[in-house]
């Protein structure tokens, strides 16, 4: 089992019910493919530093998960088709830091 950090940027015009559906959809994909989610962070609506696919703002969702290469493959396959997303990034880490959240306004 490897540990990964996965970040999704969704479109600005996403309603709350839709964003909830989006998270549950990808959570189910991960759990189906022998993955395990340890923590989800919502960084909220942020202004993008550069325009991405003609969008100025984006809704950030950050997942900390455990799984194998197959899990990530299936996850990214589903995300490539989804037109509600702007971009995603997967980073492999040695160890998860579950306490620290750089985008929490109370801490920083």
């Amino acid at each position, binding site marked *: 089992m490897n540990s990964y950090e996965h*970040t999704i*940027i969704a479109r600005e015009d996403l309603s709350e019910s839709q964003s909830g559906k989006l998270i549950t959809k990808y959570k189910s994909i991960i759990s189906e493919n022998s993955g395990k989610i340890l923590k989800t962070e919502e960084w909220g609506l*942020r202004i*993008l*530093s*550069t325009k*991405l696919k003609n969008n100025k703002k*984006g809704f*950030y969702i950050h997942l900390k998960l455990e799984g194998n290469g197959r899990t990530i493959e299936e996850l990214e396959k589903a995300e490539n088709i989804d037109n509600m997303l702007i*971009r995603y*990034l997967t*980073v492999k880490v040695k160890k998860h830091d579950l306490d620290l959240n*750089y*985008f929490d306004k109370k801490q*920083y």
Partner: protein
Amino acid sequence: MKRKKRDKKKARSSSANKLSLFQKPGIKFFRPCPLSGKDAPIIDYKNIKLLRKYMSESNRILPSRITSVSQKKQKELSRAIKRARLLALI
């Protein structure tokens, strides 16, 4: 006679030490790496506040000869900055 010669040599060497024009700036300008050591901050692509310190105003990565970051940490730093750029955080 011998003593006098020695004294002269000593005087010369001491005066040469005072001259700073042709001295190498080895010890004087040395600064330890701010990102390695015990209480150093962790380099991470989510820590935008830290990454901003090592970038110019026009969002370019500063060279390590200016910031005196060690070679190992500079590699980590540039990777973190490029990841943050991909997510449009910086």
